[in-house]
């Protein structure tokens, strides 16, 4: 007395039920319109595709079986051919709308980004960043020239008439570093920050602030690059005015060390951000044979990578400024670190990622 008879009964019941269901199915099929039968035949595939797509959209890739992953492109093609047939043969608006939605959702996945954020970051540091920087070479040279011109101009103007100093350096930033200040006062601003307190907080704050400024320099490039260049020139002018002030009190070397330790990285980053803005501005102003929209989109893609890089550089610069400069008091060590960083960047940008183009950019 046990499982066997029970099993048979259940099996028979199942058969009967199945028979009934089949009969119903046949009745339905007979009654349905031709286009509805077409739909009924394919419905299970659509539902399966919908389930796979929904799971992928929720980001649960690991829960997909291998069969599901392999079937996705096949199911996508089935659904898209169903859609094109339905458009020509069916007047069931709800089904067509459903299929259009389903096919476009699947389309986003099948033709979606091939690499995730992690893969992108690897490709970025592995050469994508350097390639993007090299692609902007012309803009970077222009931006650099503008910065240097700004520095020289700032120096020359303030040297001719110290009253210009206030135009370049806002009072809030001056912090006692004004024309007429004594050598001792100026020297104290370069050294003597030996208090170790609050340095990492300062670094974090500096990073956030400088990055937002760099993003601004980039985003303003949209106005044909002019505001980006103005920002660079102003930045250079401030630098020149500072340098003149310290030079005039015989502190050139010390001030160079004070600025270099983080400044080489920071000024390069701001120059890159300005160049990225200029790149977009040039694409908008002179799209060449492409349409403005296409040119802007291509330039934007390159410039965005340079910008991400600039933010990374500003993070490093903030660490050097907030920690390194305050802890290292030796001018020659400051100079060594600063120019060593510059050499590193120059090598990295010229050499990394040569001869290797990853598929995402191809």
């Amino acid at each position, binding site marked *: 007395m046990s499982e066997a008879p029970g099993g048979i009964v259940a099996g028979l019941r199942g058969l009967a039920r199945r028979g009934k269901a089949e009969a119903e199915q046949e009745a339905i099929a007979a009654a*349905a319109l031709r286009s509805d039968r077409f739909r009924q035949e394919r419905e299970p595939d659509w539902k399966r595709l919908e389930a796979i797509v929904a799971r992928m959209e929720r980001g649960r890739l690991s829960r997909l079986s291998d069969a599901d992953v392999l079937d996705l492109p096949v199911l996508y093609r089935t659904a898209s051919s169903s859609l094109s047939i339905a458009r020509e043969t069916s007047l069931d608006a709800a*089904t067509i709308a*459903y299929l259009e939605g389903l096919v476009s959702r699947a389309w*986003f996945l099948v033709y979606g980004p091939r690499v995730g954020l992690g893969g992108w970051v690897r490709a970025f540091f592995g050469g994508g960043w350097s390639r993007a920087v090299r692609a902007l070479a012309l803009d970077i040279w222009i931006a650099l020239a503008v910065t240097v011109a700004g520095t020289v101009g700032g120096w020359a103007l303030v040297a001719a008439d110290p009253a210009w100093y206030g135009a370049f350096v806002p009072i809030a930033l001056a912090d006692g570093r004004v024309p007429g200040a004594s050598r001792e006062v100026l020297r104290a601003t370069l050294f003597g920050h030996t208090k170790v*307190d609050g340095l*990492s907080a300062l670094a974090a704050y500096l990073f956030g602030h400088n990055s937002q400024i760099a993003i601004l320099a980039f985003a303003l490039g949209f106005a044909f690059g002019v505001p980006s260049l103005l920002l660079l020139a102003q930045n250079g002018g401030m630098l020149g005015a500072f340098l003149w002030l310290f030079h005039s009190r015989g502190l050139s070397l010390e001030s160079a060390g004070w600025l270099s330790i983080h400044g080489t990285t920071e000024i390069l980053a701001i120059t890159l951000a300005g160049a990225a803005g200029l790149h977009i501005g040039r694409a908008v102003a002179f799209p060449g044979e492409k349409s403005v929209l296409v040119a802007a989109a291509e330039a*934007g893609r390159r410039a*965005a990578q340079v910008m991400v890089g600039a933010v990374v550089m500003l993070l490093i610069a903030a660490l050097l400024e907030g920690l390194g400069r305050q802890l290292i008091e030796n001018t020659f060590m400051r100079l060594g670190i600063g120019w060593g960083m510059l050499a590193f960047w120059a090598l990295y940008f010229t050499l990394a990622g040569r001869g290797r183009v990853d598929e995402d950019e191809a």
Partner: protein
Amino acid sequence: MSIRRHQRYADARARQIITPEGLALTFTLASRGARLGALLLDLLLQTLLLIVVIGGLLLLAAGLAKLGVKGAKMDNPAMEFIAVLFFISFFVLRNGWFLFFELGARGATPGKRILHIRIAARDGGRLDAAQVIARNLLRDVELAVPFALVPMLGGETAGWLACTVWLLVLTCLPLWNRDALRAGDLIGGTWVVEAPRLKLASVMSVAVPAASARAAPSAQGPAAPLHSYQFGEAELAAYGEYELQTLERVLREDQVEAMVAVAEAICARIGWTAPGGYEVRAFLGDYYTQLRARLEAGMRFGTRKADKFTSSAPRKFRFTEAELAVYGARELHILAQALHDPQDDALDAVAERISAKIGRPTPSAADTADFLGDYYDQATHHLHG
């Protein structure tokens, strides 16, 4: 194909891309209102998250203070660590929120998900990380500007004014272009489209009679005939695809008042006595199924009937090429709207204007509808070759 064209006029936000399979996929651009709503939702969520983060940091600080770490000043390493956490989380939250979510499989921030929109590459290609980054780098300037930047720039009035105007132009860019692109979309090569998630609705030609059988359980046995109403060729020829879809919508929505009204309208047109009670749904279901069968059969033979004004019957009015060439797509679209939503005065006025323009006598009041219908029909054919 006049139906598709018709729909395209009706929906100015539809955009087509061609997939590598050669299938034309239609996307609907997200409305500006939906995008603004999504942005506000995102900002709200960001603010809430920031409040949570600050709350957590404060709790952490309080906990540390209790543990005996003295002083809440910056010279305390523990407090300094908390300050670092704050600056970094603020930066990450401000810049990372949109990036993180838009780089995901759904290409949408929580705000966009709630409103069923997402970003997509404008050229129909892959959406890559650089594009998402580019479109979000500009967001800061577009948004922060009117509130923060303009006062910051300060300085002389002329420069300040120029900056303000320029930045406002940048912010209001989406209002002034056809695709509602904001500056970030422009340089990112992206746009924002609707991403509806529709459930597959039930099969019409089966569900409808079943429903009517359920509606009258006692009167009819399980073997109720599926077609209790049979319509003749002339009765089915009264309507086209547009009306079929309206009928489908009414049946799916299943509102009694609407169904009664539609049944009465159909009966008035085909000269039947309108059914009442339970019969209404059965009547409409049968009419729907047979009309769809007829129209789909027509499709297989390459003839489509866009709406009730498209007639395959002999035309009352025939227009010459010159008469048809008078109007363009825009006027025909307006005419179609007038025909779909008929108000006699309006139709008469339209008929009068058209006949004046093409130099014919104004049709009599009884002929107005036929005149306009025939003109619309023939002009549409003429326009689309």
